């Protein structure tokens, strides 16, 4: 590879990982500006709807995002979500808490099993979580008898989704709380550096004494619990559970994680970024609803968005002409800054 190519790669790596706050700001701006040109109206209910979508898919985004930070990819998270909803709906009729606890327990066990297989046998997540996805799908379809299962207690959903402070609901506040707890654990304990270390360079982390296997198992278990709990909340909210949630939640979760600064190669990002990414995507979806876009537009936009973010975070994206031009321009600016600093006697390399 040429010297310029190597410099381009280094520059890209330094700026890899999106700026989640900037992206969220762009999405909010689109929500406010686009309806002015394309019709539709934004109001307080729209913000509530965005936070409800965040409550729907945020837990899966957290599960998938955390697995991506440790350089894996949990394909089974969305199906665990669906199974969590089913368990809560079927077993939470007399006790809402019991239904949710059983869902969390099943998610925990599944996550522990998958994580243990991956850690013990040094296996990539693709095969294991694919097998897990198929097994969970089968279990969900068998347990639901391949039919949508209704939940008779509508009052639970009404209470969970009742507006609090006009834009929140108990459900969205619970999900925000989950993100907060995980973010605090990552920030204030050594969990954060260990998780990012395992994702960034597993071998070096092992040499440095990081409990790599325990971290791997822990993150998979956390993902299972969070996804299942999110599913339980969703099941109570819509008072039903479907036999097959499809790919949509996984797509949302992946885009949300990448928009939130998590890279596919691992080692970067955190719960706050993932939350921003999920909010950004929820805002985009609300924008499409507000401008009365037909339903297929959402599929096309989210699909293309996922392809674009996969391309943007690809290791050799610097080969794209537009990226080369951008980096060259950035390189020229850096050079110009260095020359100016030299001319007026400042320390070189300072911009």
């Amino acid at each position, binding site marked *: 590879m040429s010297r310029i190519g190597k410099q381009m790669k280094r520059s890209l790596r330094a700026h890899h990982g999106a700026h989640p706050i900037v992206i969220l700001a762009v999405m909010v701006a689109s929500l406010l500006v686009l309806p002015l040109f394309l019709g539709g109206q934004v109001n307080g209910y729209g913000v509530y709807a965005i936070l409800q979508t965040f409550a729907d898919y945020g837990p899966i985004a957290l599960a998938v995002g955390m697995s991506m930070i440790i350089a894996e990819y949990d394909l089974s998270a969305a199906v665990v979500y669906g199974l969590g909803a089913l368990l809560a709906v079927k077993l939470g009729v007399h006790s809402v808490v019991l239904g949710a606890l059983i869902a969390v327990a099943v998610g925990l066990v599944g996550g522990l099993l998958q994580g243990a297989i991956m850690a013990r046998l040094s296996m990539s997540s*693709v095969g294991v979580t694919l097998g897990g996805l*198929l097994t969970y799908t089968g279990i969900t*379809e068998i347990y639901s008898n391949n039919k949508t299962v209704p939940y008779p207690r509508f009052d639970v959903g009404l209470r969970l989704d009742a507006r609090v402070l006009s834009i929140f609901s108990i459900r969205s506040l619970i999900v925000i709380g989950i993100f907060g707890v995980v973010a605090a654990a990552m920030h204030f304990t050594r969990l954060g550096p260990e998780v990012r270390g395992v994702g960034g360079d597993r071998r070096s982390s092992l040499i440095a004494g990081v409990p790599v296997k325990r971290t791997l198992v822990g993150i998979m278990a956390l993902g299972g619990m969070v996804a299942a709990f999110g599913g339980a909340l969703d099941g109570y909210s819509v008072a039903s559970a479907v036999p097959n949630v499809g790919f949509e939640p996984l797509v949302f979760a992946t885009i949300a994680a990448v928009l939130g600064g998590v890279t*596919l190669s691992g080692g970067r990002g955190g719960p706050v970024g993932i939350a921003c990414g999920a909010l950004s995507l929820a805002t985009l979806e609300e924008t499409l609803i507000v401008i009365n876009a037909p339903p297929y537009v959402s599929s096309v936009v989210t699909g*293309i*968005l996922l392809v674009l973010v996969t391309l943007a975070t690809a290791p*050799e994206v610097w080969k794209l002409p537009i990226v080369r031009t951008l980096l060259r321009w950035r390189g020229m600016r850096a050079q110009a800054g260095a020359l100016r600093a030299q001319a007026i006697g400042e320390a070189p390399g300072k911009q």
Partner: protein
Amino acid sequence: MSLDTTSAPARPSGEPATVLARFSLASLLQPSTLFPALIGIVLLIAAVTTTGFWSTTNIRSVLFGAALVGILACGLTLITVSGNVLSMSLGITTAACAIAFVYFLRLGTPAAIVISLALGAAICGVQGLIAGVYGANPIILTIGAGVAQTGVVEWLTRGESITPPAHASYSFMAGTVAGIPFAAYVFVVVAIVLELLLRRTALGREMCLTGANKQAARAAALPVAGITIVAFAVAGLCAGATGVLLGATNESAGLALQANYTFDAITAVLIVGTVITGGRGSAIRSAVGAIGIAVIASVVQLREYSFGVQVAVEGVFVLVIVIAAQIRRRSVANR
């Protein structure tokens, strides 16, 4: 590193062929061979003990189901062998090609077939380009491409099924030849052609090398990006062929045609021990995996179990095989 596609070294005349020598008892007792064989035995027992399995209608149905999944699985094998793990959207591409085939029957059957094949190759080829040239993660890329395809197909079809023109002649593809479904013949041809491609051509060897070690392949000046594009494009051709057969059989085409084909093809490839990281694989083995999937589906249907049983069984089989293959790899590496 051993490759399935390396040819036998020169031997003095009179020695038995290397192919037979490979099937020693020791190699048969390895987990990566033993478990697929055990699963095969389980399936055989299940099939034998299921009432109605051996009826002509059911065998024909199993062959047809195996053919559709098998053609996809053979194409997917090339993606896996070349180090691109898997494609998560071959099913939706198949449905899109089926819709295109049924729609373009107004231009004649040959034109409709060509357009369907070209569409499949183009859709998957573009994904191969993004993965091959820029190194994009193929799993996530193909998930996104699948969702985008779903949206585009919904937009173009307005959610309705497309029906063929009245005078179109395509029913021969839905029929049988000497009692065996036409699709089964296509399946056999595709499996043999792709197996020969992997074993007997320079391209096939380069695919295996690229899958085994991409950096080494680049250092050896192999056209890694081009190989990836070709692997995806051939998988797309297979999706196109499956789409044509599906469209011809159903006499209409819509998004629902994708059914469970994506995961069935993936299961067929993994269940026979194909290494998910690439470098090794066989189209014929994947074809056998597809027959296994069709047998599972038939047994489940005949015993009136739910579809969930089929998916759960496939999931457990995938886990067992993938774990067994990894145990085998680790034990070889630790010797």
